[in-house]
């Protein structure tokens, strides 16, 4: 920073306005929380209500004001502001200004705060009076924390939040930029621009949907916390259920978009890689689904109180925790795509712990224990700040909180006296929710390995994708079986005979269809040669396959026979069918994913272990035609559009006569990104039953030098008869006919000169046929050297031998050397039936929407 320089033309008022909104939003949220707190204590006065509501509206306007200010800066390219300078530039197309907005951490926090404000106001307007004050008090408190993320104020060395309105010259990261020495630097600079990786339509729709999903988990959370607080454990659940369904729907959509984006635009070769960033959106969804189900039990049957509170609270806490994971920099080596560390680690930890603490405090129904727990917590915080030993103190605190939670549950929480029957719907729904919760905990634990490393000073490497799959398959199987059968149980008590009779049809169909699909898929070829771990995998895949079919048929059956095909009540059946199809599609497309690019190298590395035996890189030289799966592929060359280099390839199939027909073209791309380095983007051809996915693993991005002339490779000898075919790299050559200048009689009479001509027809990839006529010349019983060059195809033929006994001829074929010839290294896969997965996603979302509509209708019909 250069303090002596007086800068010209900076529009400082914009940042001041923005900062005004930041401070106002924080204060208004705080006042609103206080207001709702006092409003919740009093029954009659509406003074606090008015105050709190006004404060919340002011807060909402401020958040929108912050967003509008930031947009205004981005639209008008105010590069004096660090955020604009970092994320936009003069060429930024209008549609990506949105992406600039949420590219950085501050913008994405703002997006989160914005959705919270939208949902908060809807909640405030629609909620029954009884729950308004307590839920909104907690809601406003959460907003205090999120608004503080945008503060960027220093307390000594410690920075609270990260401000989107700081100037470039105030940002220590840019302190040494040379242009800051110039008074009117603004006239000379352009922004750094948006990361080109993010300039695609997914980045304009995926983040807002996902963040709306994250925001939506807040509503069930505030209901559940309010329930703990007011010690009314049941009446909040009915209004909260619609919100829970909404959260399941929107968060599910966000995750689906993430998967689709990964599959379409990223190059790890799949739709799900168990990356921490992906897991941190999946886990809250899983818990939310569990919460929704225990809340349904509670609505129909009562009970399950602790689980409803636990899961509704856990979903939001897990969103907070994943915010910490992905934004604190703690993932380090284990994730290739976490956010950069903005020095907010401590702050994020404290936020997560504060909300855990609030929940524990509210759970304790004893003043003495409550006060002691609070005192101990603050003492631990104090010791941690003053004396260090933060990790040990943190572990102690977690231990204490855990023990107190269990104690409070036993001591203060209402419990059901009556035990559920084994043949009741509520029992199995409860088991299902427990399975969901457990799988969420395991994924969280796996994802948290870097955190564990820090807590317990270990050096564990992140869990592998294959291990995630291995552990999650049994959970998926149990979940699917429960999804299949649970609807056929009645609440309270079911006649077992009736139950088994009802599910038997679906079971039989699923078993027959499943076995006839599973045996050829997993057991005919693969099983006998598989290692023991893979044998286990194959068996579990088979069970998963059959369970998924079982779940689909059971739910179809329930919808058609029990619900008589009515759509209004069928939300859950439809959503369950979707869920089962998702798992089925994921299973088939992952387990039967075929590498169609095959490495022709003879080197065998199987001795190194299974992980090494993946020869999947194919070298494709320009003009070459190589077989890939059912296709023949030819590389046509590359073209550069800006920073994107496209590698164009044609895929051919053979028709009944063996003639090549062009099936489709793919243009996988490598982005030659000056800021991010290169990144490979696949191209995929979608068919109804499978996808052909191709991506470049190695390509030369610069223009290749001209082809060297007249150098030929070592010849290869071919022995052939009439009508035989010879294969070269770029042509198919047929021996069409053999002619001589002399008849046999003439030859025996006159042995001076014999010329035998082989007429060859060489067909290239485009179907053009060329004639080659190499000659075998015999003079005075010795062969004269003669070669035939087919320039068009870069082939040279030497017809050098005739074997009269076999009736065959021998021809040496050499191909032109092209050491500088353009080539690419690629990997290609065939994903079978991946459309089942996408179809399942859409069906599940539709089912959830049907359930939301029905729930809203019911809530209107019977107001409480």
């Amino acid at each position, binding site marked *: 920073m250069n303090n002596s320089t007086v800068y010209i033309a900076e529009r400082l008022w914009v940042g001041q306005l923005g900062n005004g909104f930041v401070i106002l939003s924080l204060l208004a949220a705080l006042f609103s929380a206080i207001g709702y707190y006092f409003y919740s204590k009093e029954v009659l006065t509406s003074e606090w209500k008015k105050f709190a509501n006004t404060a919340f509206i002011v807060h909402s306007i401020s958040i929108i004001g912050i967003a509008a200010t930031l947009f205004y800066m981005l639209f008008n390219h105010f590069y004096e502001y660090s955020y604009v300078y970092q994320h936009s530039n003069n060429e930024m197309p209008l549609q990506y200004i949105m992406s600039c907005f949420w590219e950085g951490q501050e913008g994405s926090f703002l997006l989160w705060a914005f959705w919270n404000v939208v949902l908060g106001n809807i909640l405030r307007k629609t909620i029954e009076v009884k729950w308004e004050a307590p839920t909104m008090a907690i809601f406003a408190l959460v907003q205090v924390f999120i608004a503080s993320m945008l503060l960027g104020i220093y307390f000594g060395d410690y920075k609270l939040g990260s401000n989107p309105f700081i100037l470039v010259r105030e940002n220590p990261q840019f302190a040494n930029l040379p242009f800051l020495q110039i008074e009117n630097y603004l006239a000379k600079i352009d922004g750094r621009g948006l990361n080109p*990786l993010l300039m695609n339509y997914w980045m304009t729709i995926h983040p807002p949907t996902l963040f709306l999903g994250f925001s939506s988990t807040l509503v069930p959370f505030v209901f559940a916390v309010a329930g703990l607080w007011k010690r009314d454990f049941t009446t909040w659940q009915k209004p909260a259920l619609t919100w829970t369904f909404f959260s399941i729907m929107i968060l599910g959509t966000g995750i689906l978009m993430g998967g689709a984006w990964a599959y379409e635009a990223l190059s*790890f070769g799949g739709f799900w890689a168990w990356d921490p960033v992906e897991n941190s959106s999946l886990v809250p969804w899983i818990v939310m689904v569990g919460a929704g189900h225990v809340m349904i039990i509670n609505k129909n049957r009562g009970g399950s109180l602790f689980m409803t509170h636990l899961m509704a609270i856990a979903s939001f806490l897990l969103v907070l925790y994943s915010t910490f994971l992905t934004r604190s920099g703690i993932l380090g080596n284990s994730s290739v795509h*976490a956010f950069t560390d903005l020095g907010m680690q401590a702050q994020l930890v404290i936020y997560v712990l504060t909300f855990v603490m609030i929940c524990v405090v509210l759970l304790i129904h004893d003043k003495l224990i409550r006060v002691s727990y609070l005192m101990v917590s603050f003492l631990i915080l104090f010791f941690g700040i003053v004396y260090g030993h933060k990790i040990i103190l943190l572990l102690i605190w977690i231990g204490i909180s855990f023990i107190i939670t269990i104690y409070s549950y036993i001591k203060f929480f209402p419990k059901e006296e009556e035990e559920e029957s084994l043949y009741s719907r509520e029992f199995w729904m409860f088991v299902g929710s427990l399975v969901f919760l457990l799988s969420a905990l395991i994924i969280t634990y796996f994802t948290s390995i870097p955190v564990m490393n820090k807590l317990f000073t270990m050096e564990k490497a992140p869990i592998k994708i294959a291990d995630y799959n291995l552990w999650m398959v049994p959970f998926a199987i149990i979940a699917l079986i429960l999804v299949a059968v649970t609807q056929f149980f009645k609440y309270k008590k079911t006649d077992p005979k009736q139950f088994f009779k009802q599910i038997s049809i679906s079971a039989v169909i699923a078993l027959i269809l499943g076995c006839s699909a599973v045996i050829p898929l997993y057991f005919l070829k693969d099983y006998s040669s598989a290692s023991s771990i893979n044998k286990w995998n194959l068996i579990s895949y088979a069970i998963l396959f059959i369970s998924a079919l079982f779940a689909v048929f059971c739910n179809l059956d329930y919808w058609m026979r029990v619900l008589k095909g009515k759509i209004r009540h069928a939300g859950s059946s439809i959503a369950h069918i979707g869920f089962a199809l998702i798992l089925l599609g994921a299973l088939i497309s992952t387990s039967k994913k075929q590498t169609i690019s095959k490495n022709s190298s003879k080197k065998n590395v199987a001795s190194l272990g299974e992980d090494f035996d993946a020869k999947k890189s194919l*070298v494709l030289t320009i003009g070459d035609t190589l077989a890939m799966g059912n296709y023949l592929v030819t590389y046509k060359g590359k073209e550069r559009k800006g920073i994107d280099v496209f590698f164009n390839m044609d895929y051919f199939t053979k028709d009944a006569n063996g003639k090549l027909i062009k099936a489709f073209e793919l243009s996988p791309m490598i982005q030659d990104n000056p800021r991010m380095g290169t990144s490979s983007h696949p191209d995929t051809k979608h068919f109804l039953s499978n996808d052909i996915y191709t991506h470049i*693993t190695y390509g030369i991005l610069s223009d290749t030098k001209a082809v060297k002339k007249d150098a030929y490779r070592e010849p290869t000898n071919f022995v052939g008869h009439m009508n035989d075919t010879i294969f070269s790299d770029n042509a198919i050559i047929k021996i069409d006919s053999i002619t001589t200048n002399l008849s046999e009689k003439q030859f025996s009479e006159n042995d001076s000169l014999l010329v035998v001509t082989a007429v060859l027809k060489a067909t290239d990839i485009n179907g053009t046929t060329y004639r080659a006529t190499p000659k075998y010349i015999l003079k005075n019983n010795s062969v004269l050297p003669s070669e035939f060059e087919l320039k068009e195809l870069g082939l040279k033929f030497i017809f050098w031998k005739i074997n009269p006994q076999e009736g065959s001829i021998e021809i040496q074929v050499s191909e032109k050397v092209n050491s500088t010839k353009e080539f690419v290294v690629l990997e290609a896969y065939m994903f079978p039936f991946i459309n089942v997965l996408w179809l399942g996603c859409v069906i599940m979302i539709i089912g959830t929407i049907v359930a939301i509509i029905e729930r809203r209708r019911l809530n209107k019909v019977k107001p409480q």
Partner: protein
Amino acid sequence: MKKIHILGIVVIAVAIGVIFTSLQSSATYSDFIEASSNPDTEYHVVGKLNKSIPVQYDPKINADECSFMMLDNKGVEKRVVLHKSVPQDIQKSEQIVLIGKMQGNEFHANDILMKCPSKYNDAKPQA
């Protein structure tokens, strides 16, 4: 004993079981020396590419093999054989993590993660 208690016990047992087995089986971050002493165990070795020695990659011979020298965090240098196509940006890498095992004097890796210097890594670059 109620059914719910049995469920609780099952849940806790599974959770402990998963934590224990995954801790037992998962690989650890390490260095070349430790990998040499257990040649058949998989390790994640963190280090830096030696940029003064060229990376060898000839797709015409084997598109799934490249080789380079890497210095681990303890300063030990070993030849690495990566059984994959060469990562396009390897020359720009600041830090690499190799997943694989030691065989003789060479480290055979089946996967590689790279950290490249970039101002913004808040996107999903290629894995």
